């Protein structure tokens, strides 16, 4: 890790807390279509996951080669899921 100014961890905690509340409210209280809900919930979940990875795991301050280790498996998994789902559709 390179030298950097420390992020405000309590602020990130507050973000994570508010996003979780928003997720639960969205899933059970808001009268919107199911697909819209699914999309918004996924966006919120990825947002929270990115906050944890970037600030708590300090990925924001790491070199690219270290970030690559973490990111490489994700597209592979998406390809796997899409491939199997397409097979089901056909």
């Amino acid at each position, binding site marked *: 890790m390179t030298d950097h100014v420390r992020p405000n961890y309590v602020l990130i905690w507050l973000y994570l807390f508010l996003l979780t509340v928003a*997720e639960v409210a969205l899933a059970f209280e808001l009268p919107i279509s199911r697909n819209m809900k699914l999309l918004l919930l996924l966006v919120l979940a990825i947002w929270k996951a990115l906050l944890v990875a970037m600030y708590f795991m300090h990925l924001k301050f790491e070199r690219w080669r270290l970030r690559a280790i973490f990111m490489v498996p*994700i597209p592979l998994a998406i390809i796997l899921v899409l491939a199997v789902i397409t097979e089901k559709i056909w």
Partner: protein
Amino acid sequence: MTHATATANLMHPPAPAEPGSGVYSNKLGMWIFLASDVMFFTALIGSYIILRFGAPGEWARPNAVLNVPLTAFNTFLLICSSVSMVKAYAAIVDGKKYFLRAVPGKMLRDGGLKFWMLVTIICGAAFVGVQVIEYIKLVTEGFTPTGYREGSLLAEHALGDPVKFGATVGGLYGSSFFTMTGFHGFHVTCGVVSMLYLYFTKVLPEKYSPQDYRGIEVIGLYWHFVDLVWIILFTIVYLV
């Protein structure tokens, strides 16, 4: 901000980096393990999505079977433990090895490594405890890895409202639910056990210093990853 505080707030690596990777080897090892764990969990989540997408009948509504408020509380616990872990990390970077120390002019005492690690361990253990309670409750009500147990409360509900409770795919739901949350719970348990070990062998004897705190950074990476996985699992299993 004065120059002195700016310097104190700077993060610096705890050990000299290996040539090539650019980080010290313990950390590189943990990242490679985490990459394999990413594959493990994406495979589990991926198979859940595929099973649910291709299920022959309607999938159960998440809040029909599961106790979502209890799990939301559990999510909160895990987020808190992640923050306390990063506070423990920041404490040892600043050389605060103590438990709590009074700060002149401030009402709250300042927490050191020993305090924040203990908070992390307690929150992690509480998470596992709540999950065990959740499992006991689910199994008592009749939700098992093989589906709704015959004659149980949930099996009766499923007969009354097959769409809401996903009566035709109860077995798929049960097995995928317990596999995903079970493996995550196992990861949390391993984390708590490892942190307890570090707490008694390294943190309490004050073996970490601002010059070398590799163990705290590496267990921290693992712990945040477990939190990250739960954030995704909570959304996919309990909310969608």
